[in-house]
Each structure stands twice: as structure tokens, then as C-alpha cells.
């Protein structure tokens, strides 16, 4: 499906298009100097059209690998080709010309970047015979990006949600790639230079750049993604224009090494400046669990409500990792309408991993920590600042000359009170961290999340309240022997 836009705009876009491949037909008008082709004021050129174009877009970097094929007639001998890319964001160091299937009979002799002609290069191609050959030009460009979006709509009972994934492709590259096969790479690669910066480098610096290894790094990073089945690539010239596409396009997903590649069915044209959103997947009935969590380090000092779901086959998902993106979460209100719950970013979710949607605080659940009691015991005194100590209350020898408190245990009893005014029972998981030498004494069946963090949970009936009573014993001063929390049954 092509995005609509007015003819006027299209003409403007066409005017600033890449001038693109000009095959300088061998005529007496062309004069050669050595092995470099240059043209004088009077030229004749032909412009072979693109047969197919493939975009491989990396979401982790502002980087797109473009591969395009054209059919060109070559004469026997030297054939000059000119390639230019005015007003686009192509990295000049990345442009390559190849001849699929013709490696022995045709080859590039040299590549020249003229010093006075911006965003242009010449190739001298040697052909062993007169022949028609399919050429493949590949290069990197910036300005094309993609991102993932998700829309999740929970049923009114909050037992399932429908999850739709989308990919949104934005084209700010200055070029329009018509009927392009679009592939999206999920994963991160290493780049030593930004393509957008390289695209701005003046032609005079190009040869200097050639001496460096930028190209090698970038090629290495993207090479494995380039190995698409060629037959698929070359077949995309067959347009879908005559078909009636009544279903959203399929987005095929396949793993490749540490990456995932999404290939959008058919071809796409995204005009320069436009963005287009396509559905990536749809899972109609993903089971969800609702959980309330208190984890200050993750969610701040509040009890938050979460939808928990799994990226697995049983959920109707699980065939692909979910790229990082923005998820909009809503709930059907039972009257045909929706209620907005939240919108937030989610990080990459591998296959089999859990998806957590944080809905924020729930005004229908009240979460309070109430201190019920404090007392101190096991108080030790230090005698005259020396190394003699004695315990207060012991019957043994008591020295009382300028004694100072040097160690004590502080007992604090708390109620973690949770009141549930929602219409159904809820599950609440609490994490609390304590510094120092601490004993956590309770009947809550707690466990340690780490050396200083206690985790406990409770179920609160609907319209009910629980008081999770626990005692925190902190050993202070001379009494502190450890730096950890110990669990103890009350």
C-alpha cells in the first residue's frame, strides 16, 4: 500500500531526487584521461532505472543499508559510470558496486571522487565483452529509522488483553525509495562513526577517509544482515499493484545470529518526510496477571499496579522478541469504550521472557506503613572511652564513671497495612531494604531478595484489609557485628 500524497509534492520530491546512475555511453563526446573518466561541457548519458531496492534499517543506530539493482548494457572494454546523490544523507565511503553472477567477466577498475563535484563518484568498469548485466549498488544512508509501538487493550475483568505490535518507519533521508523491500533489524551493532556525519563530509576528504578503516568496521557489522536470499531480493521487482491486499501485511520474522530481522511483506514506498506504521503482530487474547508491587528502587515510593504477561507461544506471542518501544495500555470499559491506563516505554523482551506493564498507583488500594512500637534493649556502656564495656542491667560489676552508651538494639514494630477497595482480591508483593545489622522478625514467610532487602507478599480480599506485622531489630554502635538482614520467625 502506498502512502498518498499530492502530485505537486511528488514533483518537488522528484526534483531533488538523486540524479542517480548515469551511464555515460561511449561516444566521441567523451574523452578519457588515463583511467579516470571525466566529462566536458557536452555530454550524453543514459539513466538506467532501478529494478529493485531493498532497505535494511537498524533501529539501534541511524543507519540503513540500501541495496538496489539495475540493468546496464556494457560494451567490451572500459565503461564509465557516474553515481551521484545530491541532497541525500548517503555515506560516500560506503558506496559499492557489484555484479552478481558476473564476477569473472566484468569488474570495477577504480572509483574516483572528483574534487569539485559534490556527492558524486565515477566508476570505471571493465567488461570482457558486450553484455547486459545486472548491477547491485549498496550504500549506507542515515535519515531512515524505525521504531516499535504497541497497543494493549485489557478486557474489563483484566484477565486478558489484546496486544498489537506495530513498526513505524520514518524517512528523512532526502530520497524516496519506491516499492522497496523493507527489512528491519532488531539488535544493536557497533559503529565507529555516525553515518549522518559521514554524509556531510566534503568530497575532498573522501580519499583521506578511504585510508582509514571506517568502512571495514561498518561492513563487518552489517555483513551478516546483507546475506538475504538473493532470489527474494531480485524478485521484488514484481509489483503487487494488481492484487487486492485486504489483510494487513505480514511481517516475517527470522533470527540471524544475535539479531532478528523483520521483513515486511511485499514492497513499501515511504515518501521523504513521511512516516508509516504497519502492524507487526496481533495477539488477541494474551492472559495477564495483575500484581501490586512495592519496590522503591524500581518504582519510587509507591505501590504500583502491573499487568504481567509472557512472551510465549501459549499467550499467542513467543515467535519473536519484542523490540524496545512505547506501549499504550487501555482497558475496555464494558460499554464499547476504552479507559486510558498508561503509556510508557518497554525494553527489549526476549522470547520466553515476561512483559511487565506498569500502570502506576491505584487509588483504590491504600498502602500505609504504621509504626506501632519502639523499644531499646541490650544496651552496653563504654567505660571512660576505653575498651572496657558492660551491659546495662547485668548483675555483674557495674562501673559508672563517665560511661557512655556504646551499643544498643532498637526494636521497632510495624504494620504494613494494605486496604483493598477494588472489586476483587489482589496480590501484593513488598520489598523493603534495611541498612546495617538487622533482624527481620515476623510470621510473614519472608525471603531475602538480596543481603539487605526483605521480600514478602500477601493477598488482600476485596473490600478488605490486612496488617502485615513485623519487627525490625537494628543493632547499633558497638552491638553491630554484621551488615546484613537476618530473617527470624516471630
Amino acid at each position, binding site marked *: *500500500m*502506498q*502512502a*498518498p*500524497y*499530492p*502530485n505537486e509534492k*511528488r514533483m518537488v520530491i522528484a526534483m531533488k531526487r538523486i540524479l542517480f546512475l548515469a551511464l555515460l555511453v561511449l561516444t566521441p563526446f567523451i574523452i578519457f584521461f588515463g583511467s579516470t573518466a571525466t566529462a566536458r561541457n557536452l555530454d550524453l548519458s543514459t539513466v538506467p532505472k532501478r529494478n529493485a531496492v531493498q532497505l535494511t534499517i537498524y533501529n539501534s543506530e541511524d543507519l540503513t543499508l540500501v541495496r538496489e539493482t539495475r540493468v546496464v548494457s556494457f560494451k567490451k572494454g572500459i565503461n564509465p559510470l557516474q553515481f551521484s546523490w545530491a541532497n541525500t544523507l548517503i555515506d560516500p565511503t560506503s558506496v559499492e558496486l557489484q555484479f552478481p553472477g558476473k564476477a569473472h567477466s566484468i569488474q570495477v577498475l577504480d572509483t574516483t571522487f572528483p574534487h569539485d563535484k559534490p556527492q558524486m563518484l565515477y566508476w570505471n568498469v571493465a567488461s570482457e565483452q558486450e553484455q547486459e548485466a545486472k548491477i547491485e549498488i549498496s550504500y549506507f544512508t542515515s535519515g531512515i529509522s524505525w521504531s516499535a509501538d504497541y*497497543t494493549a487493550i485489557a478486557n474489563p475483568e483484566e484477565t486478558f488483553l489484546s496486544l498489537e505490535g506495530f513498526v513505524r518507519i520514518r524517512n528523512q533521508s532526502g530520497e524516496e525509495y519506491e516499492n522497496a523491500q523493507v527489512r528491519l533489524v532488531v539488535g544493536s551493532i557497533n559503529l565507529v562513526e555516525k553515518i549522518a556525519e559521514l554524509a556531510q563530509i566534503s568530497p575532498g576528504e573522501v580519499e583521506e577517509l578511504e585510508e582509514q578503516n571506517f568502512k571495514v568496521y561498518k561492513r563487518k557489522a552489517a555483513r551478516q544482515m546483507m546475506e538475504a536470499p538473493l532470489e527474494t531480493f531480485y524478485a521484488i521487482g514484481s509489483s*503487487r*499493484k*494488481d*492484487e*487486492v*491486499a*485486504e*489483510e*494487513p*501485511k505480514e511481517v516475517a520474522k527470522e533470527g540471524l545470529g544475535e539479531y532478528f530481522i523483520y521483513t515486511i511483506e511485499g514492497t513499501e514506498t*515511504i515518501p*521523504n*518526510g*513521511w*512516516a*508509516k*506504521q*504497519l*502492524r507487526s503482530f496481533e495477539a488477541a487474547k494474551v492472559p495477564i496477571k495483575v500484581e501490586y508491587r512495592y519496590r522503591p528502587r524500581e518504582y519510587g515510593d509507591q505501590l504500583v499496579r502491573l499487568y504481567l504477561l509472557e512472551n510465549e507461544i501459549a499467550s499467542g506471542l513467543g515467535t519473536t522478541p519484542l523490540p524496545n518501544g*512505547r506501549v*499504550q495500555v*487501555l482497558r475496555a*470499559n464494558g460499554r*464499547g*469504550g*476504552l*479507559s*486510558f*491506563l498508561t*503509556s510508557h516505554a518497554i525494553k527489549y523482551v526476549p522470547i520466553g521472557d515476561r512483559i511487565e506493564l506498569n500502570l502506576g498507583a491505584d*487509588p*483504590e488500594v*491504600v498502602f500505609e506503613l*504504621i*509504626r*506501632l*512500637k*519502639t*523499644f*531499646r534493649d541490650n544496651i552496653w*556502656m563504654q567505660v571512660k572511652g576505653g575498651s572496657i564495656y558492660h551491659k*546495662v542491667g547485668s548483675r555483674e560489676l557495674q562501673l*559508672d564513671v*563517665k*560511661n*557512655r*552508651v556504646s551499643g*544498643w538494639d*532498637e526494636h*521497632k514494630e510495624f504494620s504494613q497495612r494494605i486496604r483493598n*477497595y477494588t472489586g476483587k482480591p489482589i496480590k501484593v508483593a513488598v520489598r523493603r531494604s534495611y541498612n546495617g545489622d538487622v533482624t527481620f522478625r515476623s510470621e510473614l514467610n519472608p525471603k531475602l531478595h538480596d543481603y539487605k532487602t526483605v521480600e514478602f507478599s500477601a493477598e488482600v480480599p476485596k473490600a478488605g484489609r490486612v496488617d502485615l506485622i513485623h519487627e525490625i531489630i537494628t543493632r547499633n554502635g558497638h552491638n553491630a557485628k554484621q551488615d546484613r538482614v537476618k530473617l527470624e520467625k516471630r
Partner: protein
Amino acid sequence: MRNNVRIHVILTLLLLALPIVPLEAWGRIKLITLPIRERVEIQLDHPQATLVEEERIVPLVKGINQVDFSWANTRISPDSLIFRVLNDPDSPDQAVKVLSVSYPPNENSLVWAVSSTHSGSAQVRISYILDGLEKEFHYRATATHDEKKLNLAQYLRLKNLANEEYKESSISVGFGDQLTRSVGIDETKDLLVARYPEVVVRKTYTADLAQYGYLDTAKKKLKIPMHYVLKNDTANGLGKASLPFGKTRIFQEDGHGGTAFVGEDWGKFTPRDDEMSLYLGVARDIVVKRTIARKERKRINGNLYNYDLIVKYEIENFKESPVTLDIGETLRGLRAELGYQNQRDVQWELGPETTLLGKPDGEKSDADHLLFHVDLPAKKPESKPDKQICKLHILMKNEW
């Protein structure tokens, strides 16, 4: 709708709606239809975001249709737009699906590509987050003459700065009935959301030095603020939902068929089962003089001490009606008043000489704050009030 506001759905029907419309086919002659809004729902149940949902009947032709949605000068969040077809997607008569969404450059618009198996109308619902539709709640409370009950009215104030008009829209605040109103551009509207008649109310008089301070510092007389306290539960005529934060104007029936304005206060967000407390001003007819009657220090060892304290309250009720006085004490505040300050919590016990009513209020007291209720008899006419003396005996332990 004003002319400068363009929220509309344009269904672009080319003369022949080709399954895939090649760019070359976009001629200068085209026909568009403008499906009007059939229904609008404004969802105000989220504290930060307003969700607007509008339904339109969109004529579609068999094949692929372009549905253009634009919102010039209106504060719609473009990433929030959802297009849903309400027709049964598996209907044999007409299956309608969204294929893609295109976003043109430098425009507040988008284009949905929608496929339809048959020509005919589809009922669609377009949802989006709208900025500029501001909401706040406020209350009007009228107390009965005897101050035992309140008639509470809850209002929603809607201020439309979104630069779009919504006619006859269904407005939902997440509780109570849905309202149907029109909201014009730049219009502010007060909507009655709920009315709670005869809400049981308790008028409180509170003496709490740490919280409210002195009325007369030299004479150690405490400030005695008055509040109406209403519990958000069904037994008291409320309890249907949390009460949102909002200003409350308070009136009182004057006993002659009219009402008098007695003040206003901010009502805090009040979950169900919690209490909303509305400040009415300072009572002049109840006098509480608070003094530290005893401060004894006992050294346990070295720099370790226990304290034996008595806080004395001399209370007079000049009103000719009995009232209940709430007396609050903060243990940290009491320790600081004695001249000792540290970061440790106070270890304390109630002493045997306490004459305040036995135990502190269990629901409203904790390890650092105590609340007692003291019943004060009415003053007899033509006579001085009886002075009631209460003592709070505190044993403060293990301080250094």
C-alpha cells in the same frame, strides 16, 4: 464546530477505489466525504490524561480506502490515536481492517489505509489523548443547623482549552453516572457529578501543640481548631468511590430557611473508608491550657536516662452544649519541648497517673502520635464552666 478547527475524518473515495492506488493515480479531481461525529465520549477517569473517543459512520468501498484524520490547532497526541472498527470483524457481510497508518510531514494529520470486503458503511471509533481539557473537582457542603449532617454536592469543573468543540458528549469521570453535555471552545463548565444528602458529620475540636501550636503562648493556651470530619463509607452516606481533591465551600443552615457561609477548605483526596477533614476555624469557647507539670530525670548509667513526665491540661467549655475534645500529643515533639533532640524514636510507656480516658484512640494513634477523646459537659447557664483537669503520664525510656 468553528471553521478554524479541523477535526474531521475525510474518507477519500477515488472515483474507482483501486485495491492499491499507485501514486500516479492521484489526480487533481477527487471526491471526499465528511463523516460527522455520531457520538463522543470524554473519559476523565485518568488523573493526568483525557481520553476522547468519537464514533463516526464511514462509508467504505470494496477494496482499500484512505481515511484521513487531521486536527489543525487542536492538542491531540498523535501517537495515541487508535482507529477501531466496531463492526464485527468476522461478519460475512463486511470485514473491515486497518492496514497501515501514514503520517505526512509537517502536518497534524494521518491517513489510515482501511480495507473492506464489501462496499457499505462501517461504524468506527477513533480514540486519542487530548491535552487542554482541564478538570478539577470542587464541593459544596451545607451543614444542618445542629451540625450533625451535611448535604454534600460534588462538582466537576471542565475548562476546554483544547480548541475543539464537543457537542452533546458523554462525559465519564470514572464513578457516578455518565453525563451528557456540550463543551464549547474556551468554555468552562461546572457539572454536578454527585449529590450526597444527609452525610453524617462529626464536628471536632482538637488540642494538639505539635500540629496547631499555641493561641496564647505566654499563657500556654492552645489553639483549638474546629473541623467537620466525614467518613467516606456507606454507613455515612458516602463510600461509593474515592473523593478527589478539591476545594470545599461550607455553608450552614441558619434555622430560618436560609444558609450562611462558614468557610472553605481544600478537601484532600480521600479513599473509601478514610476521613475527609474540613477546617472551619479556631474555637473561642473552648479553652485548653497545657503545661508540663512534672519532669523528672533518672540516670540509669553514665549518660543513659529515663524521664518521668506529666503533661497537664486544664480545660474549660464555655459552650452551652456538650462537646468532645480531641487531645493529641506527638512524642518527638514532647521530647524536643523538654530540650532534648536526637534522631532516635521515642521509647515510651503510659504512666499510671494518666487521667485521660484510658487508652488512646487505636485507629488514630501510633508509636509517635497519641490521640485521646475527652467529653466536656455543657456549661450551665449563668455560671462559670467547670474546669476539667486531665493528666498524661509518660515514662520516656533509654534516652541519651
